[in-house]
């Protein structure tokens, strides 16, 4: 469990500035053990059957208000990986907030979807589930070891509408001649939203590391946008709450691409905060309020940032 007294001072100062009145609530939430979630893999088992199977095994599960196939496990989560149903791929362990970007992406069964940073495949398998294994997904990742876990999870979940690529996402527009209806850029990040259940040795990322990550994130979102069809939707997400990895990156895209438009991101049942309009003397585009900042105290999940962008 995270010892909040041992959090670095710069981290505390930063989140106090970000959260204002809610800072104490945020800290109290971080001190709690992490919650457990699973997704019912409706590619293999109908949702109702999945819920009933958990109940039969005396596992108490509550559907997430924003995504019925996502379940918060109240009791018996340790039993799930030992079940036959889990071995068959009926359930997939996935953090509650990590299910939000695919919801925001809203893929349709006839869509061509690009998941630019796909490994280990939690969101790819969820997207495929939302598409009913129809249409097509190009799932890319540049890390070879992570491609292995991506392949394993696609197989486990029974995903058959995906082609896996192993490329640097930033270079993909040079080798792919396709244009996509939906692009997910779930970018590598400092994971500053993923704090609950962490060891007390947590260290705040130094500015140099944030700079490096930001350069990568800007490159990825730029590549993703280049591969987006006119009228298509790109979702950018990170499990970080640092504005440098989020609003800064979105602003960079908006500055470079006049045809990029931030769109409203309403997800019924999900509590969230709007994106920042201002941070440390930087003023962002007013439409940045359409982005979602999901803080741990909002839904009792990890923190996440999600932006939905349309190419006009």
């Amino acid at each position, binding site marked *: 469990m995270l010892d909040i007294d041992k959090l670095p001072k710069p981290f505390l100062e930063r989140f106090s500035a970000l959260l204002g009145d809610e800072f104490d609530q945020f800290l109290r939430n971080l001190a709690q053990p992490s919650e457990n979630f699973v997704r019912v893999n409706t590619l*293999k088992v109908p949702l109702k059957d999945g819920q009933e199977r958990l109940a039969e095994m005396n596992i108490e599960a509550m559907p997430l208000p924003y995504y019925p196939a996502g379940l918060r496990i109240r009791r018996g989560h340790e039993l799930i*990986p*030992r*079940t*036959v*149903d*889990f*071995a*068959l*791929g009926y359930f997939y362990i996935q953090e509650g907030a990590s299910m939000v970007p695919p919801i925001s992406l809203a893929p349709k069964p*006839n869509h*061509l979807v690009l998941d630019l940073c796909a490994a280990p495949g939690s969101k790819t398998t969820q997207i495929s589930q939302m598409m009913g*294994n*129809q*249409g*097509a*997904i*190009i799932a890319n990742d540049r890390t070879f070891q992570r*491609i292995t876990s991506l*392949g*394993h999870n*696609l*197989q*486990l979940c*029974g*995903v*058959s*509408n*995906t*082609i*896996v*690529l*192993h*490329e640097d996402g930033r270079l993909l527009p040079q*080798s*792919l*001649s*396709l244009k996509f209806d939906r692009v997910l850029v779930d970018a590598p990040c400092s994971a500053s939203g993923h704090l609950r259940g962490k060891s007390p040795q947590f260290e705040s990322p130094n500015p140099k590391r944030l700079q490096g990550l930001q350069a990568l994130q800007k490159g990825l979102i730029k590549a993703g946008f280049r591969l987006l069809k006119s009228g298509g939707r790109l979702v950018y997400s990170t499990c970080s709450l640092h504005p440098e990895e989020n609003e800064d990156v979105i602003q960079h895209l908006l500055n470079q691409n006049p045809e990029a438009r931030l769109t409203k991101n309403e997800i019924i049942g999900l509590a969230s905060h709007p994106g920042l309009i201002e941070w440390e003397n930087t003023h962002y585009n007013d439409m940045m309020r359409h982005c979602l900042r999901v803080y741990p105290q909002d839904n009792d999940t990890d923190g996440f940032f999600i932006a939905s962008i349309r190419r006009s």
Partner: protein
Amino acid sequence: MRSKSTVNLVVDDKWEKEVWGLLHHQYGVSQLPGYRLLRSGRKRIRIISEEAFKLVTQVPCAGPAGLYFGEYRPHAIRPSMDGAQLIGPYATKGVVIITKEQANNWLQGQSIEIKDDQHGYVIVSDGHRFLGCGSLSKGVLLSFVPKVRRPNKQ
């Protein structure tokens, strides 16, 4: 049409027909609408949705595509765990039903004895779910459940 699309994925209509023919012979499944088959290497079969199939030849340096469906063995198809789950609901033959207790042992990789005079690769079910594929000979059902997919006992 027969074209090599990627490093080791092959689109081969004639071969695909042959595989469906064997699946029909073994399990009574002559096609799954909306799916196509790809050859990976010499023996491995991958199953892929129709729309994704159309892209296989357009995407450079593609890695794995679709789902690992099974192996093309001499005169028979040996479905993977997920391939068996996919065709199981449509199978009209080549299915054996085992008890819950037998299923627990079989999923741990153990061979089990059953009263069934079928022979060859069969789809295994516990009556509620399709569990995978086994080889049945003289009443002994061998398990092909990969180690990584066996339910964790601890």
